[in-house]
């Protein structure tokens, strides 16, 4: 048996999914972070049930990727449908239930967050509701696993809803007209087609040979209505929901008051206003930096890299390889300069893992509190300048942690234009924490003006390049519209579950990218091509940027490990091989220069090869141009 969990964002689908399957998936408060569809099996009364966790949706009419994913899931793989709902929000819940009922799939309605609904003073007559809808209605509290047994039981009583939507007569006529054009099996999508903006050929299921006729028929029907059809459908469902609610719900007198956690909600309001919102934002970002940038990227990395890997793991592995592997070629591949153990795995586990772990902890905490959407509201205007909206806060903050991970979350952006823009900015102007650590170390020993110059160039690039490319890329930006969940105290167990599942993803999805990259570099080196590339690039570095020839290697290695590039420069600086001007130029160059190879692969995966190549070309060109410019200006100012 297969059971698909559907529902609005932030109703606890993923927590419920974890409880039902015992499998780790991402659970969060930030709209749309269940990026991949999670699947897992659970045992219900001796039967194996395959559970699917779908991205949150507001309606089956698709606007976002999430809604498209969920719609195709429901259209193509009917099993049992579990609608998970926020019990505090029955009006919109029923509106969606009515919409889902048209799919004619066996269904269960799960009223989750009953504890909150109780404390807010809502009384729900689940039995009566179940009678009206003709499907089981179960009350649950997913976080404490209350009502779960009942939910499991109800899966076997699930039935296609008896509820029939009563739309206005002219709408019903339109539905019938369209049904006449559709094959028998597909009649149920008639109402869905009428409400959609997407052309019928985008619809899964619909045979291509009839989609033209359907499009024509739809056009005719739409012309008969004065108002947009989706509006008529939604309003009608809302009206019907209100009638049902009157029968099953007793709500508190004052709908806007929040009895539970008043202090937390006041804090939530503060976070939304410019004052003290911006102050809180600065404090939050500072805390994030202290936790990730200092504790993770410096203290933990230092310990793991030097003590654990440098002192124990790598020497042991090296000895083992020498003993077990007689061929020097393979030996070098494992433990050489570009070895899988000595470079890729050390990098993945000693350097990035601690950063990523602390970052996931901090991010998970922020997500579960409901703070991130509030930050989006505050920063919306700033992001407008660069053609994005407040939703881009998540990828950009993540980018300061790890650009590879950040790229994955660009999926939450509404339009293709915004996703390409965000990917471009992440590649160009957002230094990751691994790099930042070394950059801070390098500037610490120099005069403040070098740091100020670096900061100015990076911020100006971020805003300037964003602004220009937002004007050049076709398409209008999507207006900002976001639900703000209530502030909540994160629950440690859920937070750890989420971090664990993300770390698992990191190990399985990202670490291999490091290994491929290292292998590629190893072969380039073994074939002598690395040296050739270096010689080819050297004139650019020495001539255009005025840097010593040795810096070339740092830039090439920087493609594999962003911080290695920076670290290579740091080494040069400590050996006294870089003047003040050269330090400034090289810092700017290494920051703007190509992202690491893992991010590059992720970009290919998410945006496609063509877009990634275009971004790479632009980034290299821009980085060289600006660094050369900085070099010339500094020379003119008399810096040696």
């Amino acid at each position, binding site marked *: 048996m297969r059971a698909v969990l559907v529902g609005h964002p932030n109703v606890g689908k993923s927590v419920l999914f974890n409880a039902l399957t015992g499998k780790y998936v991402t659970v969060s408060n930030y709209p749309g972070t269940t990026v991949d569809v999670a699947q897992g099996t659970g045992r219900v009364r001796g039967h194996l049930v395959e559970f699917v966790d779908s991205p949150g949706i507001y309606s089956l009419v698709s606007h976002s990727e999430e809604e498209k994913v969920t719609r195709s899931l429901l259209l193509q793989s009917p099993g049992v449908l579990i609608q998970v709902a926020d019990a505090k929000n029955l009006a919109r819940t029923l509106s969606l239930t009515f919409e889902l009922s048209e799919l004619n799939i066996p269904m269960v309605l799960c009223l989750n967050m009953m504890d909150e609904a109780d404390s807010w003073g809502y009384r729900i007559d689940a039995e009566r509701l179940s009678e009206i809808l003709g499907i089981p209605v179960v009350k649950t509290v997913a976080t404490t696993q209350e009502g779960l047994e009942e939910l499991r039981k109800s899966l076997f009583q699930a039935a296609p809803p008896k509820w029939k939507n009563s739309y206005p007569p002219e709408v019903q006529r339109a539905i019938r007209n369209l049904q006449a054009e559709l094959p028998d099996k597909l009649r149920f999508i008639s109402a869905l087609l009428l409400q959609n903006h997407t052309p019928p050929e985008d619809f899964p299921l619909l045979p291509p040979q009839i989609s033209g006729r359907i499009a024509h028929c739809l056009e005719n029907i739409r012309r008969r209505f004065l108002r947009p059809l989706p509006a008529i459908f939604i309003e009608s469902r809302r009206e019907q929901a209100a009638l049902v609610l009157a029968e099953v719900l007793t709500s508190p007198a004052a709908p806007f008051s929040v009895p539970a956690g008043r202090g937390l909600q006041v804090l939530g309001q503060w976070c939304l206003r410019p004052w003290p919102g911006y102050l809180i934002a600065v404090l939050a970002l500072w805390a994030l930096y202290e936790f990730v940038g200092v504790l993770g990227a410096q203290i933990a990395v230092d310990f793991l890299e030097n003590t654990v890997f440098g002192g124990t793991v790598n020497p042991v592995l090296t000895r083992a390889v020498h003993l077990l592997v007689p061929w020097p070629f393979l030996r070098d591949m494992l433990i050489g300069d570009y070895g899988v153990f000595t470079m890729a795995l050390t990098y993945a586990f000693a350097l990035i893992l601690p950063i990523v772990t602390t970052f996931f902890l901090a991010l998970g905490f922020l997500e579960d509190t409901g703070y991130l959407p509030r930050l989006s509201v505050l920063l919306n205007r700033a992001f407008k300048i660069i053609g994005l909206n407040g939703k881009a806060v998540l990828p950009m903050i993540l980018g300061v942690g790890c650009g590879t991970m950040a790229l994955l979350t660009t999926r939450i952006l509404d339009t293709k234009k915004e996703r390409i823009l965000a990917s471009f900015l992440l590649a160009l102007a957002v230094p990751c924490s691994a790099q930042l650590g070394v950059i801070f170390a390098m500037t610490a020993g120099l005069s403040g003006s070098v740091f100020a110059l670096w900061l100015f160039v990076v911020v100006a690039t971020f805003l300037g390049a964003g602004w220009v490319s937002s004007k050049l890329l076709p398409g209008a930006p999507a*207006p900002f519209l976001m639900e703000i969940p209530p502030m909540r105290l994160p629950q440690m167990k859920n937070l750890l579950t989420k971090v664990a599942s993300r770390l698992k993803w990191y190990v399985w999805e990202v670490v291999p990218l490091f290994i491929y990259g290292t292998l590629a570099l190893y072969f380039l080196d073994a074939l002598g091509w690395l040296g050739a590339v270096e010689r080819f690039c050297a004139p650019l570095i020495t001539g255009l940027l005025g840097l010593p020839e040795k810096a070339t290697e740092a830039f090439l290695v920087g493609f594999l490990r962003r911080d290695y590039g920076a670290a290579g420069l740091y080494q040069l600086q400590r050996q006294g091989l870089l003047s003040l001007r050269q330090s400034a130029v090289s810092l700017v160059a290494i920051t703007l220069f190509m992202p690491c190879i893992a991010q590059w692969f992720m970009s290919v995966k998410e945006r496609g090869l063509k877009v990634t190549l275009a971004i790479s070309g632009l980034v290299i060109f821009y980085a060289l141009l600006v660094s050369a410019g900085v070099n010339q200006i500094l020379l003119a100012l008399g810096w040696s």
Partner: protein
Amino acid sequence: MDVNKKYPIPSTEEEDVEQALGILWTQFEQGVIKKSELEALLQEAIRPGILEDLIQGGFVSQTDGNLCMSGKGLTIAHDMARRHRLAERLLTDVLELPREQIDPNACRLEHVITRDVENAICTLLGHPQACPHGFSIPPGECCMKALKHTGPIVAPLSSMLEGQEGQIVYLSPHNRPELHRLLSMGLVPGSVVRVVQTSPAVVVSTPDGILAMDPVLADHIFLRRKNGAGAHHEKQ
């Protein structure tokens, strides 16, 4: 709909008079008062001889080759202009009819709209000042009353102040894909929302939860005000 074929619409004697007075009102607004020019215009728009009928009926008088409306004529012309332009607003903003259908339909409606309906439409639309073409809508009793008490009753969400509460009357993002998103997030006609803050984004509390949006979107959501600053004015 066959409005396109029968426009200008054949009509009764009474409707012709109303129509003609409405046209004169618009021409007078623009400063055209010469009898010769107006006669030609009316002849083309309605029928030959209509101006004579107006003069004989005591709706219009003439001095020195210029036309002037009598009290009786002025009342009808005022009502016609007001109803026509309100109808245009209704058809454009709320019903979202294609542009070419606005005028023919408004021309029909102006004759059948009664005083009560006229004022109800005016109130629904928030006592608008101008029609979609930019002509000013002559104010009616309802506008006077409303101005004395609360200012426009129906106003876009973007014009509301923090703490104000209102009931959504209609949404008008013309065929924008966001319309559906707004609706499915709970901003449906009839639901009551409260403005939590207006900057840096508009934040509203709805029965479905708290929503934040760009001011651009808030321009398209029209509410009937309930309390807050509006009620405050009333007390003063």
